[in-house]
């Protein structure tokens, strides 16, 4: 498999850029290999376009845009998320900020198919959905692709018909909450109404199509204010709509909504996929930077509770995919290790154990080459020196297999 990729990589840049480095025999062999490129086209694409002449794809790409069909053969290649799906699931966040900016430059949203995603996909297939929810924890150094893998997983869950409970970044409300107010329902705790309402919007956008199809109704009536009640048996959209409209109660609505989601999937109405990025942020002290630039450490945030609740194993028909990150740690700049036990702490460990840890490793050579080819293709790398073999070798060594580092290094090239 790796050989095939290497071969492809060899074709792509050697034929295009590195004529002078090739010996005559090598050049001949690569020209001879040219017709073989058509074999690299994905099966279903070619079958779909049988009448039209087959579109030749570069070997760092795959035409398979459905993550459900991704397999070992696509390993290290980029697939493109269709624009409409991207607008549905990532409109309110979910892609790392740096990458999201680049999608405008690249005029497409392409993610590399990598091993951690395929592992999760295989494990999800093996899950017995009558058993308690299985938790996966992604870990690895910053910039190695945890969030990208989660984005891939979200796309997979969306295509596979899961109800998505997706938190793009926990510390957006645990560290940098927009607004803060004391909770009425839980004395001594604090609400983050704007963040909660924003999350409800995100949830609604991601699951609109499912909610319309499903017969998902509230199991009991909810009383928020003297005149704000949701009756039992009301469609769940009504609850969401109420939360979005009345931000004051948004935190309580999130809690009730997730409880409803949990019980509904427990009863087998649908399957749920919980995806939370920077999960260890939930166990760090809740902070709020005030106007006076002082950090105030409060008690727990009310919005953290429902996400902690839904990441337990006491329900079925659910998959929980989490990530732990140095950046979500209490002291992000002095985090000593990227391993889960250190980042989760005792509380988090006891909350999650047992779970399936998934290591998001650095790029191997083939993956780095694929990324470089993709950047050259998207004209993110324009410098001829960086496109030469020696330049690529330098970039491979300099980035140390870290995707984010590679992105930064290539930015001025």
């Amino acid at each position, binding site marked *: 498999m790796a050989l095939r990729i290497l071969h492809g990589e060899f074709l792509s840049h050697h034929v295009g850029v590195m004529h002078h480095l090739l010996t005559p025999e090598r050049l001949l062999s690569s020209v001879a290999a040219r017709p073989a490129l058509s074999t690299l086209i994905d099966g279903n694409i070619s079958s779909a376009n049988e009448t039209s002449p087959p579109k030749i794809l570069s070997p760092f790409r795959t035409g398979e845009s459905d993550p459900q069909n991704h397999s070992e053969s696509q390993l290290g290649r980029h697939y493109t998320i269709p624009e409409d799906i991207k607008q549905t699931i990532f409109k309110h966040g979910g892609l790392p900020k740096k990458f999201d900016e680049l999608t405008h430059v690249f005029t497409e949203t392409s993610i590399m198919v990598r091993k951690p995603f395929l592992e999760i996909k295989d*494990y999800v297939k*093996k*899950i*017995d959905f*009558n*058993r*308690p929810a*299985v938790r996966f924890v992604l*870990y690895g150094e910053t910039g190695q692709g945890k969030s990208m893998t989660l984005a891939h997983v979200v796309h997979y869950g969306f295509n596979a018909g899961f109800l998505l409970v997706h938190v793009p970044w926990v510390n957006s409300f645990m560290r940098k909450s927009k607004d803060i107010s004391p909770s009425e329902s839980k004395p001594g705790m604090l609400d983050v109404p704007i963040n909660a309402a924003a999350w409800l919007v995100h949830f609604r956008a991601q699951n609109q199509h499912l909610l319309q199809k499903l017969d998902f109704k509230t199991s009991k009536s909810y009383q928020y204010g003297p005149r704000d009640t949701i009756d039992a048996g009301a469609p769940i959209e009504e609850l969401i709509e109420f939360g979005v409209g009345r931000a004051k109660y948004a935190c309580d609505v999130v809690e009730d909504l997730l409880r409803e989601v*949990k*019980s509904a999937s*427990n*009863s087998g109405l649908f399957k749920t996929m919980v995806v939370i990025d920077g999960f260890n942020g939930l166990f760090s002290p809740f902070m709020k930077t005030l106007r006076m630039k002082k950090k105030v450490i409060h008690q727990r945030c009310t919005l953290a509770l429902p996400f902690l609740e839904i990441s*337990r*194993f*006491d*329900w*079925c028909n659910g998959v929980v995919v989490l990530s732990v990150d140095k950046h979500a740690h209490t002291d992000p700049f002095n985090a000593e*290790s990227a*391993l*889960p*036990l*250190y980042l989760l702490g005792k509380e988090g460990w*006891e909350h999650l*154990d*047992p*779970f*399936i*840890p*998934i*290591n998001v490793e650095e790029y191997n050579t083939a993956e780095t080459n694929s990324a470089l080819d993709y950047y050259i293709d998207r004209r993110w790398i324009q410098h001829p020196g960086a496109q030469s073999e020696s330049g690529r070798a330098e970039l491979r060594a300099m980035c140390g297999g870290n995707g984010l580092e590679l992105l930064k290094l290539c930015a001025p090239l």
Partner: protein
Amino acid sequence: MSLLSVSRNPLKGLKPVRIQFVWNHAIRLSSGTFGTDNMDAGEEFRQLELKPTRTREKFQRKKAPVHMIMPRDYKRANKIDPDNVDWKSIWPGPRTFDPNAIPIPVRQGRLKPKQRAFGKTANLELMKIPTFFHLTPPAIKAHCEELKKFCTPFPSELDTKEKCEKHFPLTVITNDYLHAAPTIRDPLARIVTIKLKLKDIPLDEHARDKLMRIIKDRYDEKTDTLTIVTDRCPLRKQNYDYAQYLLTAIFYESWTVEEWEASKTEADMEHYVWNRNTSSKALASILNWTPDKLGKSIFHDPLPEDKLKPEHHAYGKAVKNIVEGETEEGWSQYKKAAVQVLLRQ
């Protein structure tokens, strides 16, 4: 003719300066005839000054004679024969550098880098240095020769290191300091260090655990050595006694079992035992879970020993590994075990 006598003259109204001026002028005019012996060979021709310029002689302070107060034994060094000197008797103890007693042209101190350094006489810099003239190699040798008669030979039976360690398990370390300063005392000499290998003292599991908690970082795991350093008393003997007391006290303290030791919680345990911890309870809860138990996460009952399968044991082992120190390998082991336990095979 002095000016003073002029002032006593009947010519009282005349100012003395005026007289002096006239006198000077007269001398100047007549210098050609009788002033030759004052002139040096290389001096220029005389000049006729028609309008003599008034030159006031610069007032010069007379240089005071230098009265150097020389020490009694000034130039004592001259009497020393460099080839045949009994230096130990001349310079028996510590003393400041004395330029007159030491016959070497040593120099120190410069104003500019390329200049020559100042000589040894009255050179403060040389006197600041604590000298070693009393501790020359021959002097040290002589001292050692004198001390030799007080020494005893090392016991021949203790010929190997093992034998030494067996018969003398306790090592006491003290430091003595040798100074060029006038005092023979050093505050650091009071510090006493005792070292002991823990295998040499009888300890059971409880006592060892308790001892570890008492001695904390004074124990070195690599060498199995306990090190106690005492420095709080002013005298070495007191510190030594105190170290002995500490050793005795911690030994007996570690053997006593107090009542409150029974109320040790899981956090106080020295080893992680999986079956006592939440991890095993969580696993039991997952295995016994049914959909009607929604909202009940942990049932507070670990699995009984007989119901534990090999994969559960493997999982417990992996958890123990991680809790006692997480590594990449530990996590891959844990992953294997967790997949075995959680997923359909």
